[in-house]
């Protein structure tokens, strides 16, 4: 834990360093507060275990672990977990199930016909439409590419790794698409749909297992690129 200075028991953390809850980040409260940072008694304090990032005047923490909480606009992969006459309950890998009203389904559904249209266990590609302050969320399947998923394979990575594998110019996801010739869709909730030839799917699964096992590695993208260059994801 790199730190500098000491004042009142708390020590200031440097950018890029690992911080734990309670660590003082800065006395300069003019910074914008990002994820995992609060202002307390005139100081910026870390509330999460993670790595400190300072970007364009905003100070935030990339947590080492976090749960997925839906945000409007997120593209997610969900499983139908239950239904009533006019809505479905969708498991989004979040603490609370979302609802999909009959009116936002991709097909015409009669009242009482929800089970016939999409039964329990169906995998769907949907988008979060709205979230209220009590974390109740509504998803929609009206939109380009939103549909039932009938083929391929769904793998999962921890939600905090989604930005790791999808950010930057040559993302891990793009590398995997190129190397495996598979269709890959990454949901913001950490679920990844992969469809293609069995060898390609296996390569992607192995690479994602590597990502899960080495999630705290600083050179994850390079390690994946090296693996794919060797011709397999093992």
């Amino acid at each position: 834990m790199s730190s500098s200075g000491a004042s009142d028991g708390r020590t200031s953390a440097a950018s890029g360093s690992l911080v734990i809850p309670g660590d003082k980040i800065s006395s300069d409260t003019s910074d914008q507060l990002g994820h995992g940072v609060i202002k307390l008694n005139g100081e910026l304090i870390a509330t999460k275990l993670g790595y400190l990032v300072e970007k364009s005047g905003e100070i935030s923490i990339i947590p080492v672990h976090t749960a997925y909480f839906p945000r409007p606009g997120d593209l997610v992969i969900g499983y139908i977990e239950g239904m009533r006459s006019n809505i479905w309950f969708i498991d989004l890998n979040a603490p609370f199930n979302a609802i999909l009203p009959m009116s936002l389904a991709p097909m015409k559904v009669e009242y009482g016909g929800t089970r016939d249209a999409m039964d329990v266990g169906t995998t769907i590609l949907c988008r979060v439409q709205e979230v209220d302050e009590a974390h109740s969320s509504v998803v929609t399947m009206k939109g380009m590419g939103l549909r039932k998923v009938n083929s391929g394979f769904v793998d999962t990575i921890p939600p905090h790794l989604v930005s790791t594998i999808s950010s930057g110019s040559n993302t891990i996801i793009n590398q995997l698409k190129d190397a495996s010739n598979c269709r890959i869709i990454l949901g913001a909730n950490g679920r990844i749909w992969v469809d293609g030839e069995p060898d390609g799917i296996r390569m992607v699964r192995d690479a994602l297992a590597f990502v899960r096992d080495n999630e705290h590695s600083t050179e994850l993208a390079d390690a994946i690129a090296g693996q794919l260059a060797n011709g397999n994801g093992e």
Partner: protein
Amino acid sequence: MGYGDVQMIDENGNRIDGRKAGDIRPIEIEMGVVPVADGSASMRWGTNYVIASVYGPMEAHPRKIQRQERAVLDVRYNMAPFSTTDRFRPGFNRRSREISKVTADALESVVLLELYPRSKIRVEIEIICAEAGTRCVGLTAASLALADAGIPMTDMVVSVASGKINGVVVCDLNKEEDNYGAADLPMGVLPNTGELVFLQMDGDLSPSEFQEAWDYNMEAALKIHELMKEAIANKYGGAQ
């Protein structure tokens, strides 16, 4: 020979395990020991061995425990039947209920529960081997497990107990000192601010002895906080 008569500290100030009055027992911390949990930590503190794991935030069930404006902390402290020399009867009892409650109260002081309305965060504290001070070890391990699970908190909680043996105030009592000592003062401290979130007392201490025990606990809490930071850095690396 009765309580208070057992000689547990010699004229040179050496305790029966060789420690001086202000010394704490050896502590080893390991993070992420339960892969299926959202966060976990184990602590070996002297002969104590405790595993804490955290699950959630998740939807609170049954619904009657849901709070519309915040999450609830569901803490369960449990001693394994084989954790003591005599078989410990499994299941919840009066003592484990009390410790679960005071641990939850202490953790509620730091966890930002208002970020997760209607949710539940489950904290399981399992005492695998018990010597003395298991509530302190459990609370400290639970705070580590919460941090490991990515639960937002304003500070870590460090808990440690001091007490009195043969008229001398000492820090971090071991089993004999706990059993035959005259007093015990477990405290939960926020190491960055010095605030107190948990305090219990068993036995009698004069005001000056209380102050001495308080100072020992505060000093020990800072040392343990450094060990916690080291353990986290070992698991996740110092910087990215």
